[in-house]
Every structure is written in C-alpha cells, then in structure tokens.
C-alpha cells in the first residue's frame, strides 16, 4: 500500500476534477449519465477518504501523513506540498461526505434553470478546491485552492440563486477577493522575511516568525486576519454571508455553511497561529472581542429575521463566533473545541439549510409568518427540524454541545499572558449568546413546525420527506448523535496536532 500512501492526497483532491472533465464531455441531453458520473466521482472520492481513515496512524496524528512534496513552481520556490494531520482529517472527511450527500439530495430536483451538467461540474470543481485547501502545506498552493472555490460558488449563486442573486453573488466574490488579495501580500511578506525564503508552511511554522520585527509581524498577521476573517466571516465582515446564503440554491447554502466558512477558521489554525504566534498573541484580544460581538450580533440578527434561510445564515455568524472565540484563547482546549465546533456546525447547519430548502420547495416561500404547522402536514420533516434546532442550540448529547460549551469554557482560562479579566468577560457574554441561541432557534421551530396549519396551506398537498432526502439526511442525523455521544471520535484525532500549535503559546506566555 505504499503506492496508495504517496498518491492518496493527490487522488482525493483531483478525482473530482477528473470527474468534472468527464461530465463536461458528456452531451447535455444525457442527464442521467451526467448524474451517475458525478455520483460515482464523489463516492470514489469519499472511498479514498475512508481508506485514508483506516490507514491514518492515530498515534502520530500530530505528524503530516501521506505527504507529497514535489517541485511545482521552481522559479518562486513554491512546491506541490500536501499533507494530512489530525486537524485536517475531520474536515477533509466532512467535505467529502457533504459533497456526496449534496449530489444525492439534488438528484431529481435541480433548482431553476435546471441544467444539471453545469451545476454538477461546478460542484465538482468546488470539491477539489475545498479538499485541496485542507491538504495544502505550501502557501501558494493553499492560496490557489482557497481561491478555486470562488468561481464555482459565484456561478452557483448567480445562475441557480434566488431573485436577488446578482447582488449576492458579486458581493460574495468581491468581499472574499478583497481579503485574499491582502492575504496574498502577507504570504509574500512571510516568504521574504523567512531565511532561506520559503512558502513551506511546515518550515515557516517551525520558525515561529523568528527574526521578524514585532511591528512587521502585527502587519503581516493583519493581512492574514483580513483574508481569513472575511471568509469565516467574523463581525464586521459578515455582511456578505446572509445575502449569499439566502440567495444561493439549497446545495450552495449547504456547501457554503458546511465547508466554505471553515476554510477561514482552518486558515487561522493552520497558518496564522503557528507561523506568527507572537502576533497572534497580540491580536488575540481583538479576535476574541470580535467573536463575542459576532455571537451577540448574530443572535440578535436572527431574532429580527422574517426569512427562514436568512435566520439560519445569521445563526452561522453566531456559531462561527464561538469557533473563533475558542481559537482566540490560544489554548489547546479552545482550539480543539473550535475544530469540533467547525465539524458540528458543518453537520447541523448543513442539515438546517437542507431543511430550509425542502420547506421552500414545498411551500414556495420561506417567510416565517406564512409558515406553520409543519408537524401536522409533514410530521417527519417537522421532527427532523426540531432535532436539528436542538442540536444547533447546543443540547448536551448532540454534536452542537461539544463545539459550543468547551469554547465558552476555554475562555475562562486563556493562554498565559492574555488578559484574564477580559477573556472571562468574553465568557460571560458568550454564555448569554447561548441563551439567545436557544431563543431564536425555538422561535423558528415554533413558527415553522408548531401551531395550526395556516389558511393558505389548508388544502395544499405537502409531501413528507422523500427518498433522496432520506438518503442525504440520515447520515448527517446519525453523525450528529454519534459525535454528541462520542465526542472523543474527533477530539482524540485533533488533540495531538493541536498540542503542537498551542505549545508555541506556552513559550510565548512565559516570555511576557
């Protein structure tokens, strides 16, 4: 299996790309074949992921496994360097799974203007970009994959999106591009400040920003911060998110929520923190403050929404606030919680967007004031919505709890040298945020699922969950329970790798 070990990551990344090429070659009229090829491609990608799961050495989760390191752009000494450790593993598997489920979900209800060929081709490009980002160990390679997701998502929102899709798609594109342009400048600055000049993330992380003046470090971190924070998105850069989510087709929203947002948080954990620990230490209070503002702002935003999808979008802002709060503590406890939060949010919010899409398909509206009584008309779907709302508000025993609760708790004891009082204040604010979360989620549940069936829908024939939906949803629902009961399944994988990152801050704190 040596052959597999050296090819695994390249296969995982580029099989979707090959699938896309095949899809493009099939005539538009052969829809069934196009769907089958896409399904096969995503299934094959996930199969690679499963083999990786089995061959991954869990005792050495802090090491980069299945490494590939080949020459790529010699002229600027950027290399094709990929690797997988405990931090990447859960996210890569999540990406592969979600993409497959998205294909299943959209099997026979593609949004207008239909065109499955283009839709699925874009979905496959997206998958390559997302998986590649989680695996790249070279800054330029990371940048390419990080940007690769922009075009397909832009077209997905713009072609298959809602009435306001023009505005939403370009806003999404411009915001992200602005951040990544500055991020690229920071990458180049890191290159020239390292000796010998390198884009290699492993080498840069082992240097810990040595030899860079503190002021310069702060600036470089600022560039990275903008690039990643816009993607997350953190308050006040979040304004693209509600628009993009609301206008995107169901599958687009699911991918956006489940994976794309994680590219930002992953960037913090993989690049910003380990490479510039000193600057991260100085920036941590700012990140923490923006996180808790995001938690409260997102929650209040939710309470003011009239559109179901927009409400879930704002709840993402709040949830990603918890993730960023965990990261800002710079402790292994907080970062572990953040990674768990990323996975949990991916599963739960992905599921909520699926539900919102299905509700819209049945009622042709997402207006909360026009919905109601889902439990009476489609009881199974109603119960699933209830379950996901519970998971999202952090009910113990379900996955959401393990993302939220430890993140809040971790700010009780941030890394050494950080202002204890400030972070404990953050903790209190974040705790209030969890209460608000319960408020808006229960309110949504009440509006959509409970109560009487409104006049409008009395005679409407509403289908309960149908087959593709079951197939797409059951794995997610099971995982939400499974991770809630056995959080160790993720924590044990991530912990070793996270320890390596947080170690830098122990030394950092001692130096202050």
């Amino acid at each position: 299996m040596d052959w597999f070990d050296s090819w695994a990551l390249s296969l995982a990344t580029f099989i979707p790309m090959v699938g896309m090429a095949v899809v493009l070659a099939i005539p538009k009229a052969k829809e069934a074949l196009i769907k089958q090829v896409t399904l096969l491609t995503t299934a094959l990608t996930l199969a690679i992921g499963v083999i990786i799961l089995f061959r991954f050495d869990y005792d050495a989760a802090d090491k980069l496994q299945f490494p590939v390191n080949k020459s790529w752009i010699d002229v600027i000494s950027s290399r094709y360097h990929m690797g997988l450790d405990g931090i990447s593993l859960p996210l890569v598997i999540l990406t592969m799974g979600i993409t497959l489920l998205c294909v299943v979900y959209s099997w026979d209800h593609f949004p207008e203007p239909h065109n499955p060929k283009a839709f699925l081709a874009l979905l496959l490009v997206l998958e390559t970009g997302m998986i590649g980002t989680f695996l790249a160990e070279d800054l330029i390679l990371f940048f390419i994959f990080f940007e690769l997701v922009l075009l397909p998502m832009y077209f997905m929102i713009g072609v298959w999106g809602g009435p306001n899709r023009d505005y939403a798609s370009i806003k999404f594109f411009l915001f992200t591009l602005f951040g990544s342009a500055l991020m690229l400048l920071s990458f180049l600055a890191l290159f020239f400040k390292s000796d010998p000049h390198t884009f290699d993330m492993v080498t840069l992380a082992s240097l810990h920003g040595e030899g860079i003046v503190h002021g310069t470090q702060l600036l470089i971190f600022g560039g990275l911060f903008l690039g990643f924070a816009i993607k997350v998105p953190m308050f006040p850069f979040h304004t693209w998110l509600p628009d993009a989510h609301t206008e995107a087709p169901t599958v687009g929203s699911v991918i956006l929520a489940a994976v794309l947002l994680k590219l930002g948080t992953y960037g913090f954990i993989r690049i910003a923190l380990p490479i510039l620990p000193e600057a991260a230490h100085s920036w941590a209070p700012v990140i923490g403050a923006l996180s808790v503002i995001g938690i409260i702002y997102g929650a209040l935003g939710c309470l003011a929404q009239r559109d179901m999808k927009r409400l879930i979008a704002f709840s993402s802002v709040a949830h990603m606030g918890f993730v960023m709060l965990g990261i800002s503590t710079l402790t292994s406890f907080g970062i572990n919680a953040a990674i768990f939060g990323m996975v949990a949010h991916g599963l739960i919010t992905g599921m909520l967007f699926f539900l919102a899409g299905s509700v819209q398909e049945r009622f042709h509206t997402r207006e909360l004031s026009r919905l109601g009584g889902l439990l009476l008309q489609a009881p199974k779907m109603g119960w699933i919505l209830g379950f996901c709302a519970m998971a999202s508000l952090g009910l113990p025993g379900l996955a959401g709890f393990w993302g939220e609760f430890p993140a809040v708790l971790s700010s009780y004891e941030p890394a050494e040298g950080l202002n204890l009082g400030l972070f404990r204040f953050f903790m209190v604010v974040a705790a209030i945020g969890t209460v608000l979360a319960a408020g808006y989620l229960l309110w949504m549940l009440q509006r959509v699922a409970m109560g009487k069936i409104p006049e409008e829908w009395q005679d409407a024939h509403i289908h309960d969950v149908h087959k593709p939906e079951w197939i797409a949803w059951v794995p997610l629902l099971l995982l939400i329970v499974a991770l809630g009961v056995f959080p160790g399944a993720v924590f044990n994988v991530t912990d070793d790798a996270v320890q390596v990152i947080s170690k830098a801050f122990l030394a950092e704190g001692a130096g202050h």
Partner: protein
Amino acid sequence: MPAPYFDYAALAPEIILTVAIVAVLVADLLFEEREKYQTSTIAGVGCLLALVPVLYLAGNGADRTMFGGAYMVDNYALLMKALFLLAGYVTILLSTNYIEEGDYYQGEYYLLLLTALLGMTIMASARDLVTIFVALETLSIPTYLLAGWRKHDAKSNESSLKYYLMGVLSSAVMLYGMSIVYGLAGDTRLVEISKYVSSGQGGQLFDVAIFFTLVGFAFKVSAVPFHFWAPDSYEGAPTPVTAFLSVASKTGGFVALLSLVYVGFFGRGDAWQPILWVLAAASMTVGNLIALRQTNLVRMLAYSSIAQGGFMLVPFAVANQGDGSARPAAFSATVVYLLIYAVMNLGAFAALIAIARKTRSAEIDTYAGLFNYAPALAVTMSLFLFSLAGIPPLGGWYAKLVVFKAVIDAGTAQAVILGVVAAVNSVIALFYYARVAGMMWFKPSPAETGTGRVPVALGAAIALPTALILAIGVYPNLFARLGELATKGL
C-alpha cells in the same frame, strides 16, 4: 572604416518578415479579387516561418551583438520576438474572416500588419536610441492606417486620426528627450548611456531628458494621464486591429521602456522611479474606475488594458529600491506579465469577435443569456475575463503574483503602498469583469438569437489561448522559466 558586420542568422526573422511583406505586396498585385483572401495565408506562413530562426537562435543560446551594441539578439530579445510573431499570427487568424467578409482591402491590410510586426521584432533587439525610434515608427505608422480601416465609419476615422495625432505628438516629445540625452551623454547606445549615468554626471537637465523620454513612451503604452486616445481608437478600429493594438503594439512600447529603464537609465532611479510610480498607480486606479462605467465591451477592454498596463508598470516603480535584489525580480515580473497578458487579452478579443457573430454587437447588454445558447463561447469568454481579473486557477493569477512579489521584495514603504493600491485595484477590476460574466450566465436569453457559426481560423485563435491560459494557471513554471531566462542578460 570597415564595413559593418552582418550576422545574417541573427537577422533572419526580420529578413523573413521582409520577404513575406514583399510576397504579400506582389500577390496582391497579381491575384484576382476573389483570390485575395490568400494574402492572409501568405502573411500567416510568413509569421510562422520567421519563428523558425527565433527558435534556432534560442536553442543556440549565444548572445549576438551587431552595429557596435546597437542591435542585440539575446534571450530577452528572442522571447519578445516570439511573442510578437505569435501575437501577429493570432491576429491574422482573427482577421481572416473578419476582413474578407467585411469587404475591406485585404492585401494592404496584411502588408501593414506585417510591417508593424517587423518594427516590433526590431524593437525587441534595439539597444540604441536611434534604433528604438526607427523601430517605434515602423511599428506605429502602419497601425495608424489600420485603425482607420473601416473607411466608411466616422468612428474609425476618428480612431485613426486621434491615434495618429497623439502618436506623432508623443514621438516629438520623446525625440526631444532623446536629443538631450544624446547631447549630454555623447552617445546613443544604451550601454554607453548607462556608463554616463553611473559616472554621476548630467544633473537636472538629464532628469528633464529622462522625463520627456518616459512621457513619450507613456503615450505609447497608454498610461494614465496620457491614455485619452486609447478607448476611442480601440472602439473605432476593426476589432482584430484593436486586439493587435492592445497586445502587440502595447508590448512594443513596453519592450522599449524595459530596455531604456533597465539598461540605459537604471542608475538614475531617483529621476524615473517617482514618475513611473505615479503612472502605475494612476493607470491602475483611473483605468479600473472608468472601466466600471462602460457599456461596450471593447471600450471596457480598452480601459482594462490601461489598468493592466498599470500593473506592468508597478515593477518598474520598485526596481531600484531595497537591497538591489529587486532589479531582476522586477524585470522578469514585467516580462512574465506581458507574456500572460498577451495570451489572455488576445483570447478575450478572439472570443469577442466570435460572440459578435452571434450578437451583432459588442454592447454588454446584448450578451444576456449567452450561456444558454452558446455555452462554449460563454465559458471561454468567462475564462479570459476571470484570468484578466487574476482569479486562480487561470493564468492571470501568476502575472499578478509576480508583480506583488516584486513589490514585497523591494520592501520599502513606497513599494508596499503601491502593492496595496494594486491589491485594491485587483478587487475593483473583478467587479467589471464579473459583470460581463454575470450578463452571459445569469440573464435570460433574448427571444431571437444569432446563429453565426465560428469559422475554423477564429476557433483556433480561441482554442490556443484557452489551452495556454489553463496550462499557465496550473503549471506557471512554463512561463516563469521564460521570464527568468530573459533576465539573464541583465
């Protein structure tokens, strides 16, 4: 005085082009009206044949100098010659059907096109003020005529006249500057001028001379604030000519600028650097902001090419800063940018010409719903537009990257500020490129859609850049190596 030394191998590309020019002229005289389309074939073959000695010389590797250093055939010159010849060939592919169907004079058209190309290939080797000037006029004068090729269209006449007047004015300004340089340095060869520069003589008068010379070239490369002629000329000229102007002609100006700044004037960074800094920042910002408001795609691409020119000027503005390591990096950044820009801009114009066969217009509104009835054209056009915007994995990202890299390499405050200006501009640029893509993909198609077929030559002119732009995007080493080779002679 001994007879001047002629290295016929080194001059072979120019000689072949000259033969092709004569062949086109004779053929035009002898051929019947309905046979005249064959002049296009002769011109195309001429371009490709001229590439053969270029490749031979590149394989041979040795630098060849003639006329006391006034004429140089090194890697850089060969690379640029290859670029010009290929750009010329693609332009001929673009023109074949356009010129034939449009009922224009065909023989003269290709004659002028080849003459302009001859000027460009000479420019690539010119290392002397007089040679540079002769090359510049050889490449400019035919393009003044080409811009007015649509004789019965008032816009085309305006285009030609504006271009001509501005071109002559800039030549005058440039010559004035050059004359002062010659008066002070006592030599027209760039190598000798650079010796004079490094001896520290000259004072403020020399600064003035540099200023005038650069301003003259700023007209040629349509840098803001000397850009006014470009959009009108671009819009009025026949579209293949516009493609040629915005790629080959602009590159011709940049090649001269590269030789002048990096070889001749380099030591006087304090004199030329601020000028080029301002030109770069202004070109990017003004070009982009005005492009935002355009409703016609040709005009939009004209302003976008002004902005792209600004990006190419950025490395100039930082070349003489930092610890000196920036010089080769900046030089190769501009060269690589020129190469990639040529590919994507030619591709964009090729797609535009093909789409115009369906929409009968270059107004952006008429592109609505193109994706629904001509998906292949819509996709390739989108690829070129997003490549121009610098979105990975399309080739344009690498062009942007090397520019940013040169900026950060220099590392001074002015350099970093210019880098941030460039970063912000790349975001602004995306907005108008994406708007066109959005029009093609997001909007419903009109009730009646054109059914114009894409002829083979035009198809080739689209396919070639498409393949290249994807290849560069995924494996930029391809062009990056070329940039590095070109820098060796520096």
